[in-house]
């Protein structure tokens, strides 16, 4: 999940009796699956929560380009390099769709980026892990994009129109990402013993961080309850995580790779896999900024933004000058 632990700013979820007339009619429309559009009235907390959630999602797409960019110049073939560049370009595009969706809520793009750079806005914990070998590119596509799809498919039905429409577009493209990742894993798992060992190493390192992407268990979270009532969260973190495990374990078996969890076993009674405890201390440390790559990721983003500032200014000055010249020519004629 690219948006983790989104704060709704509420202390408790209110029932219809405690809502104002406007809030009641808003909730009634959400309950009836009517989409909320930018100019419609919406509670301030709904608007703010969506800005937080969508921008966290957008920042994740953009920061997510960095770990993969690390391997563009070292891709093992021209074909793999072209595919990787296309995938990274998609991630940039996804970030742009999502920033646009957030902007319909009355925030500016520059403000969102400034919040990320100031450490006030988060991005997914997963992108703070390093890509150490080529198989990591396979593992990211297969596991990280797989987990993202799991989260994003339900969001295509979320209550906010521009967000739902961005999600539909993203989901259409995301499936390519997951398959190209699995394709890399297949090639390596069927390769030399050394290549297979690299694939296993990548799975060992990415498995648990991928499960953490869905966020901590949210059964008791007031924010999750509020987001569910607003239909901007459609399934619980644990439900999504279970679906991901159930879908991914057979895929690992096909590759002949071992999922690094001694407690993992099929539970026929539940019809699901049971899996071991997740090290949530690690997750919270990464969120706090203490993951293996947090500082490096932010430093790279800020540098790219600052290095590009003169280009943005020049392009705008050029456009203004041409517009002024056109106006002057029209007046003279």
């Amino acid at each position: 999940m690219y948006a983790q632990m989104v704060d709704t700013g509420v202390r408790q979820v209110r029932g219809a009796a405690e809502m104002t007339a406007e809030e009641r009619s808003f909730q009634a429309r959400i309950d009836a699956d009517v989409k909320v559009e930018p100019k419609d009235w919406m509670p301030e907390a709904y608007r703010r929560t969506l800005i937080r959630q969508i921008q966290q999602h957008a920042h994740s797409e953009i920061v997510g380009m960095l770990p993969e960019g690390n391997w563009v110049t070292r891709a093992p073939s021209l074909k793999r390099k072209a595919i990787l560049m296309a995938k990274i370009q998609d991630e940039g595009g996804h970030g742009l769709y999502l920033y646009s969706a957030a902007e319909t809520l009355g925030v500016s793009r520059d403000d969102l980026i400034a919040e990320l750079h100031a450490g006030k806005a988060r991005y997914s914990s997963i992108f703070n892990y390093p890509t150490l070998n080529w198989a990591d590119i396979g593992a990211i596509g297969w596991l990280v994009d797989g987990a993202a799809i799991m989260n994003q498919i339900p969001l295509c039905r979320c209550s906010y129109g521009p967000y739902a429409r961005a999600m539909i577009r993203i989901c259409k493209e995301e499936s390519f990402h997951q398959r190209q990742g699995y394709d890399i894993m297949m090639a390596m798992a069927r390769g030399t013993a050394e290549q297979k060992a690299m694939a296993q190493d990548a799975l060992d390192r990415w498995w648990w961080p991928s499960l953490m992407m869905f966020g901590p268990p949210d059964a008791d979270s007031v924010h999750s309850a509020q987001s569910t009532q607003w239909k901007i969260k459609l399934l619980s973190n644990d439900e999504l995580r279970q679906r991901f495990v159930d879908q991914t374990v057979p895929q690992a078996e096909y590759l002949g790779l071992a999922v690094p969890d001694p407690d993992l076993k099929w539970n026929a009674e539940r019809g699901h896999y049971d899996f071991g405890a997740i090290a949530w201390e690690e997750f919270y440390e990464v969120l706090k900024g203490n993951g293996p790559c947090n500082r490096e990721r932010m430093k790279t983003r800020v540098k790219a933004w600052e290095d590009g500032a003169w280009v943005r200014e020049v392009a705008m000055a050029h456009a203004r000058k041409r517009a002024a010249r056109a106006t002057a020519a029209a007046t003279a004629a």
Partner: protein
Amino acid sequence: MTTEWPLWEIFIRSQHGLAHKHAGSLHAPDAEMAIKNARDVYTRRNEGVSIWAVRSADISASSPGERDALFEPANSKVYRHPTFFPMPDEVKNI
């Protein structure tokens, strides 16, 4: 000095013969760059054969409050649909 590029709405014609359809928005300094950026953001998979870029600030939109006044009058005019007029089975080609 920080200057945010203006916002543009992008419309894409997906195949010859179909109307342009709203695809999304993006930031660009001018119309030429808006179209170039739209090519990269919205047509990476052959989605289009033609792009329109319109400054978001130039779009006028109806407001949600006017919804009933604008669209409700059409509700009572069901006779505008051909299915309002049942035709006997014996009558063909109509």
